[in-house]
């Protein structure tokens, strides 16, 4: 099946909703319990994360609300738990439930932000490389190869060190979210560029591109308006994988102390901050944000798998 959502045999001229309802995507979604469950979990997590100031009982960013005396309290099912802290507290006495909510928000923000940046860079470069070909193609793709030969970690360390050295570490922690989006976005754009380039190469020899050129349209217009929409399905699929990857990259960077500062923790920095206390028995500080991270990434990945099966892009490479 190479059909996408508009493969329905619409009668006269159906509305947008009818198109969705008759589409193969919706048909497949209705029959796939895993996809439904994952979407439900993912949406719940996104809503909870972005509504965290409303849901969370305390504001973990507000130092005045933190009481160091109530640190390392266990979650409710263990003796010694405090009623005020359902999931216990961390080493600084912050409510774990609140801080996991806030942390998920930070992780999602960085994940989506980085993927948007990756997609902007990667799709533009991939389109240009594939469509214009020749020297542009060579230069952009060699650039991508060079970029891929650095690991995300290395880019993060170098950029982080440079920024900290020139602007000071206070500046770095203030703009840590931006920095991480920038770092992960820059490190991973070649994934998009390669996928898009491959599909553009397949698309650009089709006659509708010739027809558009004969119409006297500009190259830019042909690239973005004619070729790009035809390469959307691999872009969608790779996006799900990339969001999960970006969240994991962020967690890994934060775990190594290169990411979010302790005062504005993401899931990764929470895992890290709890890691020191595992030995002393306070395992929940690490395991609870860890479990949230696993569930989040797993649900995104499973959704991505489903999407890949539905759209079946020929050029997908995980």
């Amino acid at each position, binding site marked *: 099946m190479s059909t996408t959502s508009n493969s329905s045999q619409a009668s006269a001229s159906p509305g947008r909703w009818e198109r969705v309802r008759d589409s193969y995507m919706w048909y497949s979604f209705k029959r796939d319990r895993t996809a439904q469950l994952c979407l439900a979990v993912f949406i719940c997590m996104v809503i909870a994360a972005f509504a965290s100031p409303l849901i969370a009982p305390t504001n973990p960013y507000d130092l005045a609300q933190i009481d160091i005396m109530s640190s390392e309290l266990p979650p409710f099912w263990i003796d010694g738990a405090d009623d005020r802290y359902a999931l216990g507290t961390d080493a600084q006495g912050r409510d774990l439930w609140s801080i996991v909510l806030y942390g998920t928000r930070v992780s999602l923000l960085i994940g989506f932000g980085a993927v948007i940046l990756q997609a902007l860079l990667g799709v533009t470069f991939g389109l240009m490389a594939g469509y214009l070909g020749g020297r542009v193609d060579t230069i952009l793709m060699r650039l991508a190869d060079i970029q891929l030969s650095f690991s995300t970690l290395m880019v993060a360390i170098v950029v982080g060190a440079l920024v900290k050295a020139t602007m000071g570490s206070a500046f770095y922690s203030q703009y840590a979210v931006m920095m991480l989006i920038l770092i992960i976005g820059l490190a991973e754009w070649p994934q998009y560029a390669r996928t898009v380039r491959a599909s553009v190469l397949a698309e650009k020899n089709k006659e509708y591109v010739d027809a558009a050129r004969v119409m006297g349209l*500009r190259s830019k217009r042909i690239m973005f308006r004619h070729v790009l929409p035809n390469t959307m399905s691999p872009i969608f699929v790779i996006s799900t994988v990339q969001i999960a990857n970006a969240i994991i990259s962020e967690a890994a960077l934060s775990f190594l102390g290169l990411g979010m500062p302790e005062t504005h923790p993401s899931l990764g920095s929470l895992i890290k901050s709890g890691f020191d206390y595992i030995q002393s028995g306070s395992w929940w500080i690490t395991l609870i944000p860890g479990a949230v991270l696993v569930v989040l990434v797993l649900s995104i990945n499973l959704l991505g798998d489903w999407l890949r099966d539905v759209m079946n892009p020929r050029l997908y490479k995980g």
Partner: protein
Amino acid sequence: MALLEVNNLDVRFALRQGEVHALRDISFSLERGERLGIVGESGAGKSVAAFSLLNLISKPGFIAGGTVNFDGQVLNHMSERGLRKVRGNRISMIFQDPMMTLNPVLSIGEQMVECLKAHRRISSKEARAIALDKLQQVQIPSPETRLDQYPHELSGGMRQRIIIAIALLLDPDIIIADEPTTALDVTIQAEIMALLLDLCEQHNVGLILITHDLGVVSQVTQRMLVMYAGRVIEQGPTREIINDPQHPYTQGLINALPQMATPGEKLNQIRGSMPSLSNLPSGCAFHPRCDFINRADGQPRPACTQQVPEFVESGNCRVACHMVAEMLEDRRLKEETS
């Protein structure tokens, strides 16, 4: 001066194995409202000729020499920007396969509006009105609905009508139709051809019809070119060429038409196949397949294998053939002596 004048057009492809000469020395002209047919086997260079008129040959091909004069401008020396003003606007093109020519993810209306807005400063609403008018001209049923439909919702015949509507959108001076009916059903072929002819006559649009269907050429066009291995081998008024073909290749093509065969017998064919452009036979490219290579005395004509034939005038036609040249020469000598 004619609206379109092509002089000694020479197109090559720079391939790894060396340069391949795709078009050699192509010259023809087209008056306003005139219809010209370009005929030849697959690989003769018909489509390359069409694309080179708009300077749209993609790499590794390039125009190595000659000029394409259109309305006082030399298209192959023009800037990309100037060319865009000609493409689609003054010269438009219709492709072979209507299934492939429309963008599958854009609605018909979007594609038409886009083309209009690329060349004229008009609002989307006005563009839509023009698009609707053109769809009515190509006699599509319920044109308003079509504007919001996607190509996959339409049949092949309807799509080709839409492509004709798009070609007419900006009231061009010339339409280049590259095998416009080859991919269609036989019954629809006639309809589409009649429609195209009708619209060209109505709007006084010149038509360059590229096809291998001699029947269509004889019905639609006033003049024609016959191409073989990147060269024009015969050109002139369509009626004269169809009724009295001079070049052995043209004769072979006409003989190969199914209606020329005796019922119950095998169809006539030209033996052999088109040579590869990178490895052309010496002399006349057609000589290995030619039945007239021998002279009246039974000896092969040396010029055929050694020398590329020049054009000779025969009536209103121009023919590139040693045999025809020899015949004409003989006739002239006889007339002189008598």
